[in-house]
């Protein structure tokens, strides 16, 4: 025992995974909406 929290990799992997998932999904949604608006503008 040295006072250090043992293990913890599962929490680290969870935090980085959540970060990647949220940023990828949000980025994809922005790009999808941009394409949608561009298509509407070109159609009009």
């Amino acid at each position, binding site marked *: 025992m040295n*006072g*250090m*929290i*043992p*293990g*913890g*990799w599962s*929490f*680290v992997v*969870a*935090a*980085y995974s*959540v*970060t990647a998932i*949220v*940023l990828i999904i*949000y*980025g994809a949604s*922005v*790009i999808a*909406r*941009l394409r949608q*608006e*561009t298509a*509407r*503008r070109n159609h*009009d």
Partner: protein
Amino acid sequence: MYDDNNRFPRLPWIILGLGVLFLAIGSYIGLFVAPPEALMGQVQRIMYVHVPTAWNALLALTFAFVCAVIFLFKSDWKWDARMEASIEVGVVLGFLLCCQGSIWAKPTWGVWWDWDPRLTTTAVLVFAFLGILALRKFVEDPARRAMWSAVATIIASVDVPIVYYSVRWWNSLHQLQSSPSTVSRQFWLPLRMNAFGILFLMTAFIMLRARVASMRLKYELVPPPALGETI
């Protein structure tokens, strides 16, 4: 009166690429190169994504405040589009911040969530700006929507400095802000790489999302064609 926010069409994509690159390198160093912290061990590696997310969430919402003030003074629609974009990005980063914080809290504090001043004020901030996004969704008149949400943004922004200083003003479970003098040199590099990575991603998202809002505004502000024109 109206700006399509499209003078540099490639710029957001370049910034987005830089953000992904910085975040990938910073995360690699944070996960595999930097040493574990003396007390928190491996769990401390969450700091390399949590702290940059916090900085940039507050930055995005501060930018929303600036956009709201400029819109109220200049009535220029591009600032309304930028405000909408920065609020949305700020809310996404705020939500992500709460998720990361919760995951970090469990092994260090023993709980997923605690109604401590920093966490509570952050939750209030996220829900206040989420409410403004809901307000924007429900108001159809662009002028009213812009005016009401600008005023609401200025009011909600009062919570931004409260979130930042909450750990100093009240007795909090959450640790105080770190500074270069309190963070070991080995931890600087991944922290700063990821801070710039998320800053670039946030900037690119705001630019692209403002472009979406601008295009939608252009559509809303153009008067409908006369009946004869449509036939």
